[in-house]
């Protein structure tokens, strides 16, 4: 299934780029990220632990940087596993705007596939959830 969107953020393109392209910056920026393991420049794994009323159910997401145009564009292929599902997400993020201006435009598009019970929800329900997750990460990175 697919989703896409765009949003304006207050951080400059340079800052956004540095946050999005450095996994350690990402770890600082995002509250739900508990741990980051970097294998090399283009691949890293992130341990996310969203809290629920009964405790935390951690989720490892493996990220591969598939394409990179310095300062402008990145394509990430992410693979996450929960207990009863398996998700693969290809996320493209493009940044527009002057390098050091006070804000920039972020355009994103995502293609996701799910194995397991989530796959049945499909295009009906998931794009909205995906959009809010992606935009949440982008806003957190910008702040």
């Amino acid at each position, binding site marked *: 299934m697919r989703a896409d969107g765009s949003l304006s953020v207050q951080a400059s393109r340079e800052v956004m780029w540095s946050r999005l392209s450095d996994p350690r910056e990402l770890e600082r920026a995002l509250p739900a990220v508990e741990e980051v393991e970097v294998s090399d420049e283009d691949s890293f794994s992130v341990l996310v632990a969203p809290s*629920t009323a*009964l*405790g935390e*159910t951690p989720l490892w997401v493996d990220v591969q940087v598939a394409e990179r145009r310095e300062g402008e564009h990145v394509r990430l292929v992410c693979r996450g596993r*929960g*207990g*009863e*599902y*398996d998700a693969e997400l290809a996320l493209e993020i493009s940044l527009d705007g002057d390098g050091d201006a006070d804000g920039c435009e972020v355009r994103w598009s995502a293609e996701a596939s*799910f*194995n*397991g*019970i989530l*796959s*049945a*929800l*499909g295009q*009906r329900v998931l794009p909205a959830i995906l959009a809010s997750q992606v935009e949440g990460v982008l806003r957190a990175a910008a702040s």
Partner: protein
Amino acid sequence: MTRAVVETIESVEHELGRYTGRSLPRTEDRRLLKGQGQFVDDTWMFRQGYVHFLRSPHAHANIRRIDTSKADALPGVYATMTAAEMAERCEPFFRIAPDPAARIVEYPLALKARYEGDAVAMVMAETRELARSAAELIEVEYEPLPAVVDAVEAADPRSPVLHEEVGSNLAWQGIYDYGDIDWALENADHVVRIERLHFHRFSSTPLECQGALVNWDLGTGQVEIVSNIQFPMFASQVMGPSLGVRQDQLLWRYQDSGGGFGNKIAMYPQVAALALISRKAGRPAKWTEYRSENLLSCGMGNERTFLDIEVPVMADGTILGFKLRAFDDAGAYLHYEPLGAVIWSQVTPGCYRFKHVHVDYTETMTNKCPTVPNRGYSRLQHLWMIERIVDTVARRLDFDPVQLRKQNYVQPEDYPYETPNGCVYDSGDLPGALDKALSLIDYDGARELQKRGSAGKRIGIGIGSTLDSGTNNFGQARIINPDLPFSGNGEAATVKLDLYGEIYCTLGTSPTGQGHETTAAQVIADILRVEPGDVRVNAGFNKEHSAYVGFSGTYASQFAVTGINAAIGAARRLRAEIIKVGAAVLGCEEADIVLDGGVASYRGDSERAIPLIGIANVVYANNAVLPPEIADSVSLNCRYVYRPPFQVPDPETKRGNLTLTYAIQVHACVIELDEETGQVRILQYGAVDDCGRRINPQIVEGQVHGATGHGIAAALHEAFNYSPEGQLLNANFYDYRVATALDIPELKTDHIESPSPFTPNGAKGMGEGGGAPLATICSAIQDALGPDAPLVSDSHNSSERVWRLLRGQESSHVDVSSR
């Protein structure tokens, strides 16, 4: 062809008549209307833990590693189990299939994931939410494998193999050959060839999901099972050896069940898993399936593809038979399959006098949910195909669809009618049923409406004729596997007089809404000459206190024959005992005893009489007043097993009498098709049923409504869709679109009663309905599409598919060759 050999059946119809045949309101209703029913999830045991099954997200995957330690460490988790643990604690399940599928090794949990939803581990915890969250902490390393999701492809040796020990995906393969189809094809005036017909995957989705509460008591060794499973004694026979327990340790019971329709027959893997985790944790294990889990993993009806269909037809319209290849999709495991590979042959020629039939039948396993029996199990697929053939022959050779059917039907004077494979159709009036169905929809008026036409809409009229074969001979399992020790059929009942003369009946059946408590009371009241309100019948199923046999359960359209005749037989034995005791007490001959209104009297003399409470008293608490030979020969607790007269079928020739009774349903409908959207609206729907002597006509009609509702829903709204990777795309009630009150139209019904000569009470089993709406609606859509339209070749016709057919986009090729 020889006339069928018919065993003389002693009829008891003359003994039934005061309440049998009347539409008495049900006694079950009161508790159900007041919310006082006891369904499985309503049942509770002290210290119970809730179970969640961890299910594979992959359609096909090896399990490299599985680690439950984080789940085990969570406070409130009582136990976890994996398949590897189970393999150490139990034996693999007994197999129905012959070699090579007999080599399948299956435990209650899967060592390898073979369909999306395959259970690979389980958790028992304090609450259901905790069990589910804990399951998320179980680490499973899957190695995904390519999946095969098409039954025809699965037969190809190059396709991915699900069970390595089998070496292929073949569940069963065989040729059914009757008459001389090659002669028929060579000598017919016409041969109609249909490239492909496809019967889709759907199920009845009973509103209550599967569930079980299992307690393995280490002290007594009893395994107490409260479950809405539909065929408890079959499950018991499979589970006992696997768990290493005696049959008398397995105690099955439930009170109310929220629908079955066959879908709850194969629950034994889950029940066995619960038994094992109960033993491990030392607590009762409670599991209630949630709906997505149910759609993903409970079981789906047979999906069948028919290829290269050839139909020889004579110039006068006589259809000689058919030849085809059939591929049935068993899904990932054989829990009740491959019995479906023979069960369709109960109705080999459908409603018709076809003499030459050749079916090359292959059943394969695919990476999809396992197949379970679904209302009409295996017969509705076959009967649908036959109606498509007849419909297509009429259309392509320009025969009137009504006349062609009437001409080829088994005629009223033909009964009892022996089919090409030795089944015996007992009674019926197919032409009469068709006439009634057509009059219900005002056939002539509908044709007028069709001629008049209307902008953007097309009118179509459809017919569907079907049989509901009931009370099956389990010996047909030997046609699948000659080594299986099964044959015949039967059901057990007890009717007893309790201490104060109360009449109580236990049945071995497992009702799911068919009104067994009410209808059994009707016939017992007739035999014992009391009011139905005086007779109490056990609710639900209880192995510990009810009589049962290996076939006990409720399935395959047989209660009106097996269960009811068991109750009648037990009541007659009790009556004989009452009369014997009465004669002894009143000092007269048994022939002089009249039993009526709860009193046994000398020739109706109320001064010389003893009420039932007195009969009970002298046997139970006052037996010194009876002559010893009388006291020693009665118990007032009478058990009876009704056994239908079957022989063992011949696996070599694949011939035999496979079912005792054949109810008939003929449906007709008028639809309006929207050219722009492909949507189908049903304008008129008529259903005629003939199930022999009806015990409670209102209950029979209710079953006709329900089966029709299921059929219409499947024809237009319900279909399971898998992605090519084996992901179920509609695993919830948003997208698996169950029919609502707005989708099912008003149903007009009529009936015929052609008593069965083969049953003591003249009744025939019914309830499955044979899937008539699927054929009826396909026939109507074909009619609406008009001449030169592509063939309606699939049993499911969503508006999208109809839209494509309207634009000639879908086609399964049909060609006609004539001499």
